[in-house]
């Protein structure tokens, strides 16, 4: 499947299996390409002596390597703008080196050198691609086939390797969040009440101590001296105190000392909901996943990693998946019932009474198709959601050219008047399918403003 490389999140699949050197090359595409597809797409320029002849593997560029000078890069980018040139650093690239079957998702800053180039992307999806081959067989005979959705296409794929993958994204997403906040000046979050204590302490000079300590608290000390002297009946008239005639005991000195304080912080719970019905295949999915990565990163930074995430996929039925990898890679081909997803969110929140302890954010990406033409089932669930959440952000992707106008979902949400009733709780953003990174970030600003 060809991805639109203009997106921020291009998954660059560096196929470098340790044993089979025949697959030492890079290839683009969202899904894990099959063996035949790899061979089919391998161009003559993919071959090099290093990998073919010396059986060497491509050097692994680590994520640290690319992030080493991130601050310098951002500064340079900012300077570009001041000098009157558009910014050039892009972020949100997912590099997915696959070694030994383990998937990793890493986000790194990237850039591209623009030139006048021939656009070799297929203009017409009906057009057939060609490559070479050799061996026996009649013209027209099929020499191999591979499923369209090669991996994670069914079941709960990805669950096994989820742990590692999620950890991987977490470590880089925080940095991405930092970059996003700085670079795109995304707003900082307002604190919405401190809700849950965390095992985190700060040290402050808050405790008082008599006799010794770090700093003499003069006011408290004076008060104590007067108290002592009143007790000793050395102050006959409290309206006229003679300070020169006081008895001062060393015990009266009050000091401040460092003390351990528990810190309370707000905590966020984010639901990411993605429509993975048939109509979402390709660009819409890419857009939604990209935007959700960016939102996730931003929240992670905002809440200093105190973000819990739940991932929900839906077509006509909704299901929760354990990690981001499963979330971004799964595709099916079914119809759409938005209600199912909203209901699942409501159920989860209710059963675990999450609303009490968390700031809850819900982000939903869809192309706006819904069998529930009037929203009769969806709207009530949505209202329920709005009762406890801090923000519901819905992104609707729209076909770039000749689209069919306003989508079902958008239509009935607008009709219901929710957007006007609760403008602070729910935001809706419609993006064209050919949106670029800047547009997506604009969208995020809109969703979280």
């Amino acid at each position, binding site marked *: 499947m060809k991805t639109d490389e203009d997106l921020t999140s291009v998954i660059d699949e560096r196929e470098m299996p340790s044993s089979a050197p025949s697959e030492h090359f890079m290839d683009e595409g969202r899904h894990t390409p099959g063996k035949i597809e790899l061979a089919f797409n391998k161009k003559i320029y993919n071959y090099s002596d290093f990998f073919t002849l010396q059986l060497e593997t491509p050097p692994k560029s680590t994520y640290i390597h690319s992030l080493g000078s991130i601050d310098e890069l951002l500064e340079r980018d900012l300077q570009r703008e001041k000098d009157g040139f558009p910014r050039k650093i892009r972020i949100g690239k997912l590099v997915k080196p696959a070694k030994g079957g383990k998937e990793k998702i890493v986000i790194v800053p990237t850039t591209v*050198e623009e030139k006048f180039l021939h656009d070799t992307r297929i203009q017409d999806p009906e057009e057939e691609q060609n490559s070479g081959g050799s061996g026996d067989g009649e013209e027209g005979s099929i020499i191999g086939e591979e499923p369209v959705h090669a991996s994670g296409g069914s079941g709960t794929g990805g669950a096994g390797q989820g742990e590692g993958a999620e950890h991987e994204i977490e470590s880089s997403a925080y940095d991405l969040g930092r970059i996003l906040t700085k670079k795109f000046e995304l707003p900082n979050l307002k604190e919405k009440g401190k809700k849950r204590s965390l095992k985190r302490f700060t040290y402050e000079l808050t405790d008082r101590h008599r006799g010794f300590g770090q700093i003499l608290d003069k006011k408290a000390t004076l008060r104590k001296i007067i108290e002592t002297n009143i007790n000793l009946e050395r102050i006959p008239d409290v309206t006229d105190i003679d300070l020169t005639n006081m008895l001062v005991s060393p015990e009266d000195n009050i000091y401040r000392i460092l003390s351990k304080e528990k810190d309370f912080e707000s905590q966020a719970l984010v639901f990411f909901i993605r429509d993975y019905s048939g109509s979402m295949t390709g660009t819409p999915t890419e857009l939604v996943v990209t935007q959700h990565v960016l939102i996730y990163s931003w929240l992670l930074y905002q809440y200093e990693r105190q973000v819990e995430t739940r991932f929900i996929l839906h077509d006509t039925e909704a299901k929760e998946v354990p990690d981001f990898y499963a979330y971004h890679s799964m595709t099916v081909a079914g119809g759409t019932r938005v209600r199912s997803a909203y209901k699942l969110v409501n159920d989860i929140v209710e059963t675990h009474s999450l609303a009490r302890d968390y700031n809850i954010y819900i982000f939903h990406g869809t192309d706006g198709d819904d069998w529930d033409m009037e929203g009769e089932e969806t709207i009530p669930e949505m209202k329920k959601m709005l009762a406890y959440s801090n923000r519901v952000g819905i992104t609707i992707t729209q076909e770039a050219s000749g689209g069919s106008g306003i989508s079902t979902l958008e239509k009935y949400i607008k009709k219901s008047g929710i957007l006007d009733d609760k403008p602070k709780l729910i935001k809706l953003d419609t993006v064209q399918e050919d949106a670029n990174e800047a547009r997506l970030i604009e969208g995020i600003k809109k969703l979280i403003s």
Partner: protein
Amino acid sequence: MELINQHTKQIMEGCKERAREAGLRFQNESLEYIVTNKDLLELSPKNMIPTIYDYWVHDVEVLKEKGKYELYPNNPYETVINTRPAMSFYNDNNPDWLNVMIFYHVLAHIDFFQNNMLFKHTWNEDFAGQALSDKRAIAMLRSEKGRWVDYVIEFARGIDNLVGFYSELSELNRPQEIHASKKVDYYFDVFLQAVKKVNLSEYLKEIERYNETIGQYGQVGESVFFSNIIKKYPEFEAMFEKQDKKGKSGIRDVIRFIEENSLFLQKEENRWMMTIIEIVRKTSLYFQPQIRSKILNEGWASYWHEKLFMNDNRIKGNEVAYARVNAFVTALPRVGVNPYALGMRLFSYLEEMADKGRISHEFQRIRNADARKEYDAKTGKGMEFVFRVREDFSDFMFINTFIGQDFIDKHKIFVVGKRLNSEKGVWEYYIKSRNADAYKEMLLESLYHPPHIEIDEKKTSEGALYLNHRFEGKPLVKEFIENTMLGIEYLWGNPVKLETSELVQEKPATEQSFYLYGFNLPKTVRPEEKKFQVCRVLYTMEKKRLTRSLL
């Protein structure tokens, strides 16, 4: 990065002797380095040339997917680079027998670099040394001008795929027997064609007349010839002198044109930019031949490593291990195109054909299949012929000239198609064609080919630089146009226009997703509704703003 040890170097020297005996020609000195993973990371953005200038983009993970090979027309992991002496890079744990194989491969590459005509402009200089001095020049400028150096590098790199590689070559490879004066050149190349726009027959008549005059009057022929022309075109003399005074190179590449004509660059305070632009241009020119000779170069190297390895008495006993590696390198894949395998087979095939005298007019005229099969003139010219091919051909010529049905049939090669079987939910790969022309077309389509963009000097005279993209079936990558033109505008100092073609999709009838058996199907547009139309459009970049209009 360290040099290989003496033991391994000795093996290399042995390989050189044997390769030379077999007819390969290359400089005696070479440098072999052991590289580590870290070295590779540092070298690959610099295309394995350790001394190339520093540029911040090299330190960033670069999005390479879109038009990967057009953006970076060279292999980031070259094993051997075209410097003097040639440098090559190795893994530190290759066994001796494998090193022998790789060394032969490398030596054939060096032979190719130093003899193929595409590389002619690199023969008289050591690029590593050149790059080092360029790197220093840029570092010096950077300490003076700061980040503006990087902007200029960026903008110049934005058009470095439009360097006039072939015009540079044709200048170098001008046949010696032609020693026409500038005036004659101007008359035939520019005046008649661009100014007078005479038709072909008239043009040929003029050439005929010129040859006759020269034949008749010898030394003074030229002045006699032009004395007639002044009568016919009184303005000719003045125009020629004007052109001559400008002293322009006549090379029509975009970078060169900007260097020579940009009023912005000619300002005293901006002259330093020229240095950088020229460095970018020269670096790009250096890399041009590599990507235009991938199949040829790898084919040549594979052809020789096989020949030489099998005859090398030093590594007897490793034939099986060798066979395994060699099969991996040079086997024709069931699906895909392997330049090693294809190039090597084509060279072997050509050697055989030439040995039998089949690359000849006589052979071509034979229509009888049996007679063709039997034909053998026993010329013994096979080796000589392949050496000529390695000298004079590029990938395009190699494929376009020599891929024929006999070759395709001999190696059972075919075109593979890929189509969607929506019922089964699978991609099907199938044998699409065994026709040589179809295969040739598929290959040619996959070769590197930068867009052809020329300067329209006439329209440029109004101040704005006018670029004309000759449409060859593929539009330009739209998203890149703006920033590329922004860079050109900066260097040119005035507005820039780009005339190009785009495919505009006619709007299909709006279609609602429809419901079928409980499923809403993916929105599809029926193929017959999808119509593309090629339109000529004009982009204008003025004061950092891009506008687009239909022509």
